């Protein structure tokens, strides 16, 4: 497989501008003749569908939820980064670029990250013009706060619901296009197969989740913006419906899957309370602006936090990383939490938790200020745990949150299948081995509002609309048959175990052996156990109900079948990457003081996995990464 990232030549500040000028255009009168499918309506998909509709392409947008407004971008709490330098704290596009490459532990592509930092300022302008109610100062100008991995204050926010407000902005723009007739919306539809004809993505097979009908949809290009695959761990901060099916189907049709083992564990989530738990809830990283993280110095200290005197507390992030303290990047903060819990100093049931304490901040700033900043997060915490964080410190523990890995894309955001573009969390492009806080929203919107409208035009200008392909084509018929057979097979097994029980078991394997820290033996064992579990799944899963109706068990069954395959690829990728970097921590490769030890000589590259058939091992292709502007160095937040 040839991986050509198509990075434009020239100095990094000029690459995007140069490419924009070099790209071909589609005549305005011809745009409506091109049909474009967008799967997923979160920040990336929603903004892409709206922007392409505005350009008058003929867009069909799909989401599995009942409305495009429900995509999981809506749950992002803390904020969105932009290099506006409104705070006069010496921020710049170059600094945001530098922080993001360094934060990603030098495993992202410099050119992509630079473009992201450039576009960040346009995103804020766009969203403000849409009426997104960002937080403001008394003078009427936009407010900012700080986030992990940065020493400047560049995060824009709308209380603790930034993702919601940005998504509603994109959703409203999308609905405007629905009304205008440029976008046709297909809610409660799930993409179950990609159709590739003569090496080009030409459409999808989708299931209408209400009628159960299997529908072919033909297009001139397909855009996947279907989010991340964190639910392979069963418990994660993702929504229950988040899945890998769309990108996994594309992978099996020839799209390379890049860096699947880069999965982010977020340090501040509400700890697991029992084995019935269905998901984990994030407590925004912004809380680390004012909250202090600590555990008792003594092992197995069961005193309530208020009884533990100051000198017997270990504010371990402030101690270990004095320069960044409680705002250390996510991978570092998560591992530190695991380490103190492994030492027996964790708090709460089972000792799997650390305190996030606001007592100092409340004393310093007053309860009113804390309520203004984090009121809704405090309420959410209290609803879930029954404890009042104004009086008792929050208990938090790391949880699976974000997938840096995803389908490989070039600088144009096109996958290795021509005509198949991948945006947002579903691609791998910008965050390397670790994503910094408030960067996911930035990437989703940069991809959807400002990159794809140009790069897609460049692609479409080179092909004829329709090109004689209809839903009657043999490849569509074959893809449809494959989907139907798979659904029928799942329904016919009638085994003894529910889909959820398999999913939980898979999640347990992934968390134990491919979670916050990994080692060769554990990964090898996980590979065997996942294969065995997948074997059992296709013999012993039990799916009730019928095909031609709303059947949530059947929906889940298809998604878990794909997770059972993806889990294996993640472990394989983790096994082959014989270094530690960002969120990927291999116990065999660490510095004497327990930090990640990269191996730039052998692993300064993207691993792009190529599907090689049902019974063959996938092929590991390499895209070397070059660092011309941010020099390779061991990350230090000390």
């Amino acid at each position, binding site marked *: 497989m040839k991986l050509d990232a198509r990075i434009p030549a020239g100095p990094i500040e000029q690459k995007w501008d140069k490419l924009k000028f070099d790209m071909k255009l589609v005549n305005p009168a011809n745009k409506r003749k091109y049909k474009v499918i967008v799967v997923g309506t979160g920040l990336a998909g929603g903004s892409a569908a*709206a922007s392409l509709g*505005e350009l008058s392409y003929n867009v069909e947008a799909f989401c599995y*939820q009942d*409305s495009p*407004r429900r*995509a999981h971008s*809506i*749950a992002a709490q803390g904020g969105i980064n932009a290099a506006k330098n409104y705070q006069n704290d010496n921020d710049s596009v170059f600094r945001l670029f530098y922080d993001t490459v360094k934060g990603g532990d030098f495993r992202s592509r410099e050119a992509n990250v630079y473009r992201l930092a450039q576009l960040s300022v*346009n995103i*804020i302008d*766009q969203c*403000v*013009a*849409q*009426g997104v*109610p960002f937080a*403001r100062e*008394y*003078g*009427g*100008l936009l407010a900012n706060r700080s986030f992990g991995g940065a020493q400047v204050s560049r995060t824009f926010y*709308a*209380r603790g*619901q930034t993702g*919601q407000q940005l998504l*509603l902005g994109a959703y*409203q*723009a999308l*609905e*405007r296009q*629905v*009304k205008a007739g440029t976008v046709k919306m297909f*809610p409660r539809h799930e993409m179950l197969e990609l159709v590739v004809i003569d090496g080009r993505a030409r459409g999808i097979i989708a299931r209408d989740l*209400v009628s159960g009908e299997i529908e072919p949809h033909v297009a001139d290009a397909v855009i996947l913006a279907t989010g991340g695959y964190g639910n392979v761990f069963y418990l994660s901060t993702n*929504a*229950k*419906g988040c899945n890998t099916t769309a990108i996994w189907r594309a992978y099996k049709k020839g799209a390379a899957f890049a860096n699947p083992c880069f999965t982010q564990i977020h340090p501040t989530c509400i700890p697991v309370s*029992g084995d*019935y*738990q*269905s*998901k984990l*809830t*994030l407590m925004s990283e912004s809380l680390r602006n004012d909250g202090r993280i600590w555990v008792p110095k003594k092992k197995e200290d069961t005193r309530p936090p208020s009884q533990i005197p100051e000198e017997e507390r270990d504010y371990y992030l402030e101690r270990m990383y004095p320069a960044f303290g409680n705002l250390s990047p996510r991978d570092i903060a998560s591992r530190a939490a695991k380490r103190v819990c492994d030492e027996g100093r964790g708090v709460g049931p089972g000792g799997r938790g650390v305190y996030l304490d606001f007592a100092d901040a409340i004393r310093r700033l007053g309860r009113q200020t804390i309520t203004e900043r984090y009121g809704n997060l405090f*309420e*959410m915490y209290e*609803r*879930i745990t*029954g404890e009042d964080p104004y009086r008792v410190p929050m208990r938090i523990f790391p949880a699976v949150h974000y997938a840096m890995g995803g389908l490989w894309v070039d600088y144009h955001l096109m996958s290795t299948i021509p005509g198949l573009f991948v945006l947002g969390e579903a691609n791998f492009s910008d965050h390397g081995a670790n994503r910094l806080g408030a960067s996911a929203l930035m990437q989703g919107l940069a991809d959807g*509002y*400002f990159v794809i*409208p140009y790069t897609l035009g460049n692609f479409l200008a080179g092909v004829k609309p329709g090109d004689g392909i209809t839903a009657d084509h043999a490849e569509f018929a074959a893809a449809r048959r494959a989907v139907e057979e798979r659904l029928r097979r799942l329904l016919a097994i009638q085994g003894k175990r*529910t889909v959820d*029980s398999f999913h939980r078991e898979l999640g347990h394997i992934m968390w134990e052996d491919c979670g916050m820290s990994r080692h060769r033996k554990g990964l090898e064992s996980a590979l065997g156990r996942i294969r065995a579990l997948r074997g059992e799944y296709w013999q012993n899963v*039990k799916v*009730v109900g019928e095909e031609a*109706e*709303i059947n*949530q*068990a059947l929906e889940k069954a298809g998604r878990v079948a794909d997770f059972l395959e993806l889990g294996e690829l993640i472990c394989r990728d983790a096994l082959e990457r014989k270094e530690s970097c960002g969120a990927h921590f291999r116990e065999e490769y660490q510095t004497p003081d327990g930090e990640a030890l990269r191996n730039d000589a052998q692993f300064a590259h993207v691993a792009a996995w190529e599907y090689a058939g049902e019974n063959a091992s996938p092929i590991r292709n390499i895209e070397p990464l070059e660092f011309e502007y941010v020099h390779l160095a061991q990350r230090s937040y000390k």
Partner: protein
Amino acid sequence: MKLILHIWRQKDRQSPGKMVRYEVQNVNEHMSFLEMLDVLNEDLIARNQDPVAFDHDCREGICGSCGFMINGVAHGPQRGTTVCQLHLRHFKDGQELWLEPWRARAFPVLKDLIVDRSAFDRIIAAGGYVSINTGGAPEANSLPVEKTKADLAMDAAQCIGCGACVAACPNASASLFTAAKISHLALLPQGEAERERRALNMVAQMQAELFGACTNHGECEAVCPKGIKLENIARMNREFVQAACLHREPARETGGA
């Protein structure tokens, strides 16, 4: 603990539905209400019965997917809480509960506790936006917004579109939902240019979807998980009346050279 549930079961949009009694054993106070239904569903599957269908996704109270009536109250007994964030510590061991879907003509039942809320999307499509295309937006700080106004706009913009307001209203009115969006945009300078058209078109769409009218019961505000205030409906009514009096269609464009 144990709960006795009476759940509305309906196969599809056409079929008649009925209440069915279930006993859920071995649940505990730390579970969320939906986790309790997960336990019931695992049990139903084990007994070869169709699990109870209900909409849910984020399970952290923000996506707006979930929601049904518990003992006649939308999202159940705890104020300011979606059903996914409602925990069993608010119920008693052995308590008997009746679960029903949102009931409104504009929200037809699709299956069990799932209803079709696409009418909400059409109300937004009628005008719930600022008509600007991507690109060419002015520098963000070139337009200061009074903090109080921005905060009020944010209060209204928090609506998650769950539909509880409609379910709670004796008239099945969508006024609180529609008013929240009209308010959010009317309070901001960005929304000013389309203020009149927006109010007229969104209210007209709300009526076309067969939602009822508002008669100031206030049930919507009482059940709203995001605390959207009734004052937004007052603001919507003012916007609508003003627009009905003052609105003029824009002049048709005439040709140039």
